């Protein structure tokens, strides 16, 4: 038999002529920048609140000296962001789209289709730790709680000194709540629970409709992944700039 294996092995080995390296490169830059920003935000523990806005990275607020915490966990030695960030982090790390993205860009498993890989051994998601990706559904349920709090913060963002008002921050928080809802509601696990697990959908008309609806959202799951991620950064950055006094919150109403 001809040994084609010898030729297809080796990192980046391919006969492709297109710019296959561009997508992994852009992903590394974008995700790398996000991780750096999120880590910094999580550890600063400052400027995450400015009346009436709460940064989405700190929601639900479980302590700290700023804002209106839902719970005041005084014993917690770190910033309150660390108490909640593991939920969205776990949700995105176990997300089917997220997995595809970082397996390709960071692990080069593969870097692009029909392109050689760096490692010889491969177990995919069949062994520890990656077998734990099967628990994605639980992060989905937990993240629904976070989304509910984001909606609460978005509504709270329209109340200035007990009165209704609209600032740029209110709109940014509303947009982020909406985007994160779209991302969560387009999750593959919800698609499965809604109707994917049923064989005979005609006997379950309500689930059939729900499944169709989630499937339609699911078709753009990757897009929701990226824009909800960017939305969180934009909202946090804005609140930070207003809190430090670098920018004055523009009131529309």
């Amino acid at each position, binding site marked *: 038999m001809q040994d084609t294996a010898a030729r297809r092995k080796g990192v980046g080995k391919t006969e492709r002529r297109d710019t296959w390296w561009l997508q992994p490169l852009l992903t590394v830059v974008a995700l790398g920048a996000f991780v750096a920003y999120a880590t910094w935000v999580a550890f600063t523990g400052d400027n995450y609140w400015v009346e009436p806005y709460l940064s989405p990275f700190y929601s639900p607020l479980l302590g700290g000296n700023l804002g209106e915490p839902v719970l005041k966990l005084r014993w917690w030695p770190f910033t309150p962001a660390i108490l909640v960030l593991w939920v969205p982090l776990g949700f995105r790390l176990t997300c089917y789209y997220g997995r595809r993205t970082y397996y390709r860009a960071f692990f080069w498993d593969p870097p692009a289709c*029909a392109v050689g890989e760096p490692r010889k051994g*491969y*177990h995919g998601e069949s062994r520890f730790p990656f077998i734990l990706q*099967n628990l994605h559904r639980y992060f989905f349920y937990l993240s629904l709680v976070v989304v509910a709090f984001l909606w609460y913060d978005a509504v709270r963002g329209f109340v200035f000194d007990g009165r209704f008002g609209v600032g740029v921050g209110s709109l940014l928080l509303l947009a982020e709540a909406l985007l994160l809802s779209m991302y969560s509601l387009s999750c593959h696990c919800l698609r*499965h629970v809604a109707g994917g697990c049923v*064989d005979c959908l005609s006997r379950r008309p309500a689930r*059939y409709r729900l499944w169709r609806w989630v499937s339609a959202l699911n078709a753009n799951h990757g897009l929701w992944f990226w824009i909800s991620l960017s939305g969180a950064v934009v909202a946090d950055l804005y609140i930070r700039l207003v809190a430090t006094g670098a920018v004055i919150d523009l009131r529309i109403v």
Partner: protein
Amino acid sequence: MDATFRIFRGNSQGGGYQEFLVPVEEGMVVLDAVHRIQEHQANDLAVRWNCKAGKCGSCGAEVNGKPRLMCMTRMDQLPLEEPVTIHPVRTFPVIRDLVCDVSWNYEVNKRVPPFTPGEGDLWRWQQKDIERPREFRKCIECFLCQTVCHVLRTHDQKSSFIGPRFLVRAAGLDMHPMDSISRTRFLKEEGGIGLCNITKCCTEVCPEDIHITDDAIIPMKERVADDFYDPVRWLLRKITRRG
């Protein structure tokens, strides 16, 4: 205008590229060029084809490094300033020139638990039930997805992974409203569904535009998770003594 083709010539023992110059005409596809070479320059060039309409699935090859159907690859989609490379698909052994031995796939197919209708079921189902399995029935068995899948292509795990084509087939049977058995154990233990890391190359190359990962593999991974990896479901099964 002329285009240069670099075509693999050889057999199971080895081989190399041979160059050919072919005049390009409007509307030409790569398979036309290969036929022209066969007709005028290399009568013994082996190539498998049948329909020239993207429906028989036999003309798969790697054109400029990408697995594609030669009959559906238009010349005007390719950069003709440089030579066009055509190599037989890399995941299966070469028989001669562009023809590979894909019989491994037929053996795998036999292992997928077949369609098993329940006894005494009424053979009547609705449009709503057909939508999902119908997408999978579009498969023309070109095996381009098997070719590009890195589990088979790079890691050569043919003994433990059935590949995207057969994950699609298993999904189509499992989601069929008249089918009565579950294939989750088969997929986990024999099919190697855990080896797929949903990087979606199969979906990218499928000429029938089947959403292999989103509509077949991920839904089956979720069914496998229901049966084997969900601690709450496991507990409920223990309490209710089911399964």
